């Protein structure tokens, strides 16, 4: 199956008064229909900007560059704002983090749903209305017809997020980008929304790129995972590979922080990664994680580190699990064992 979206070597630079902020430093990823790619990382690693970069909704001062950004066979860079607006909402949809403020308070839910279809397709108002009701029901909103006339402030956060999801599906997009869609919601609602997204993906065969900082969510929904740190992917692979064989020290550290019911003993220390994310302003030398890495050495600061494959040899699956470290995969596996034993 060919890729829906193929991004190679994306960089995002923001010229600030203090210098140039290299928010995203050369990441490559792709999305396929029916598959969920999770980009996971802590605040400030550049994942939100990455999601905005695909649709070109970045702040005006941002400089976006990539070797290529191909969506359904079309290069996205260089498209005019008008051409992009034809794609947005139509072939690609986006769900944002804050359902409470992402809907226009002055218009009804129905109006905001219908205007999407009316914008991108030649349909009548009635047809748009029917589609809106159909999708509202699909996302689990009862009394859908009456909801059309309601205003956003009359709905709870969970309901608003469902409306957002329905809105994204109005034009039957091939790709949905979800930027922390459940972060602002209660845990129970979170589970419902994730389940909903998974169902809809199966039913409509959309490709999903999910941005999150929550490894629990990643474990639940991801087919592929990219771990992002300080503007780079430090590890990527299938969900199985990442969770069963975390290779990069950062990934290992992240997983160590999570208590596992049954395994983690009462009173046991949870792992922690000391330090803070480094500044990304100005030139950056070597590995950006080395100040916080327990296995750092002088080799880490010399030059940029390329992604290498975890599995050696010419396996077909060898190419999917990649990591960015000077240590060999075997050394990393050893570290993992030591960590588990401690």
């Amino acid at each position, binding site marked *: 199956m060919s890729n829906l979206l193929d991004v190679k070597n994306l960089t995002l630079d923001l010229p600030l008064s203090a210098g140039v902020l290299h928010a995203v430093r050369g990441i490559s990823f792709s999305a396929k229909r029916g598959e969920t790619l999770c980009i996971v990382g802590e605040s400030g690693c550049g994942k939100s900007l990455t999601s905005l970069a695909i*649709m070109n*909704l970045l702040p005006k001062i941002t400089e976006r560059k990539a070797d290529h950004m191909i969506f359904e066979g079309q290069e996205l860079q260089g498209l005019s*704002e*008008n051409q*992009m*607006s*034809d*794609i*947005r*909402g*139509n072939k690609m*949809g*986006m769900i*944002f983090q*804050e359902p409470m*403020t*992402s*809907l*226009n*308070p*002055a*218009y009804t839910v129905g109006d905001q749903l219908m*205007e*999407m279809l009316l*914008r*991108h397709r030649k349909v009548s108002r009635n047809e748009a209305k029917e589609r809106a009701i159909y999708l509202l029901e699909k996302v689990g909103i009862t009394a859908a017809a009456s909801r059309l006339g309601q*205003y956003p*402030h009359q709905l709870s956060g969970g309901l608003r997020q469902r409306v*957002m999801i329905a*809105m994204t599906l109005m034009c039957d997009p091939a790709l949905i980008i979800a930027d922390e869609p459940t972060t602002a919601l209660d845990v129970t609602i979170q589970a419902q929304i994730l389940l909903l997204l998974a169902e809809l993906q199966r039913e409509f065969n959309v490709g999903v790129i999910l941005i999150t900082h929550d490894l629990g969510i990643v474990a639940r929904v991801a087919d592929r995972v990219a771990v992002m740190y300080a503007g780079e992917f430090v590890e990527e692979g299938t969900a199985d590979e990442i969770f069963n064989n975390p290779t990069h020290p950062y990934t290992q550290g992240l997983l160590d922080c999570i208590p596992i019911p049954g395994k983690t003993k009462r009173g046991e220390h949870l792992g922690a990664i000391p330090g803070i994310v480094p500044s990304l302003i100005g030139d950056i030398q070597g590995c950006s994680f080395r100040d916080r890495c327990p296995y750092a050495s002088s080799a880490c600061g010399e030059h940029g580190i390329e992604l290498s494959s975890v599995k050696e040899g010419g396996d077909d699956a060898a190419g999917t699990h990649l990591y960015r470290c000077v240590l060999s995969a075997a050394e990393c596996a050893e570290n993992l064992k030591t960590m588990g034993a401690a």
Partner: protein
Amino acid sequence: MLIYSLKRLGVALLVAFAVSMITFALLRFSGDPAAAMAGEAATEEDISYIRTHYGFDRPLYEQYGRWLGNALQGDFGQSIYLKVPVAGVIAEKAPVTMKLGAFALTFALVLAIPLGVLAAIRPNSIFDRVALTIAVVGQALPSFFFALIMIIFFGVTLRWLPISGSASWKNFIMPSIALGYYATPAIMRLTRAGMLDVLASDYIRTARAKGLRPGVVLFKHALRNAIIPVVSLSAVQLGFMLGGSIVIETIFSLNGLGNLAWLSIQRSDFEMMQAIVLSVATFYILLTFLADLLNAFLDPRIRVG
């Protein structure tokens, strides 16, 4: 919603009462209605006769009570000078002032809102600086001076526009501009600030992510929300214009309430002055009330239930 409206109406009525009371007291304390009525050639006897006859020597609250009683029945007294019922004269002149006010506000809005939107889309650009300069200049120019300059330029030198009377709509062009431009800076700044706020909001980002065209995002989504506080401000500004029209009306010889007020002041026509101040205050109160209703209409979050 109904209870809210009734409460507002109640407060509005109270304010109207208060205005009439204060104006009554101020006028009575400042001058002598008996002397005014008697005219210049009157003797002391004439004046004290008028004073007793019309009850000007009664305590103030009693005089006010009588006025109020009459007013509630629609009788606002007789013009001391013109010897005709006050209410009729006001009803005759009010439309001219209202027309002037409406035109002036329209001018202010037509100038201010596009400028404010442009300044917000391109902050710190040349548009922004031009808009802010117009705002700063507009607030510093005295309206009567501006009016006179326009008369010299457009009325006499270029002879494009008539400079007095209220015969046709052309007569209202210069007066409307002179009266309206003072409201432009405030409205423009509010529009600009509101648009800047709204354009940075999440729902505008959603609108763009939906692939809506830039014009639709700007007008249907952004302006619609940013304009809400401008409505209230416009109503207040219109109220001020109605009250401040006296200078413009005298310069351009427009036959409205402002002009009437000027004549009444010169003739010490108490009854008329009282009624004019009350009329203008009532208009203002009505306008703010209307603005509240309009707000509720524009912003669904304000409506209850």
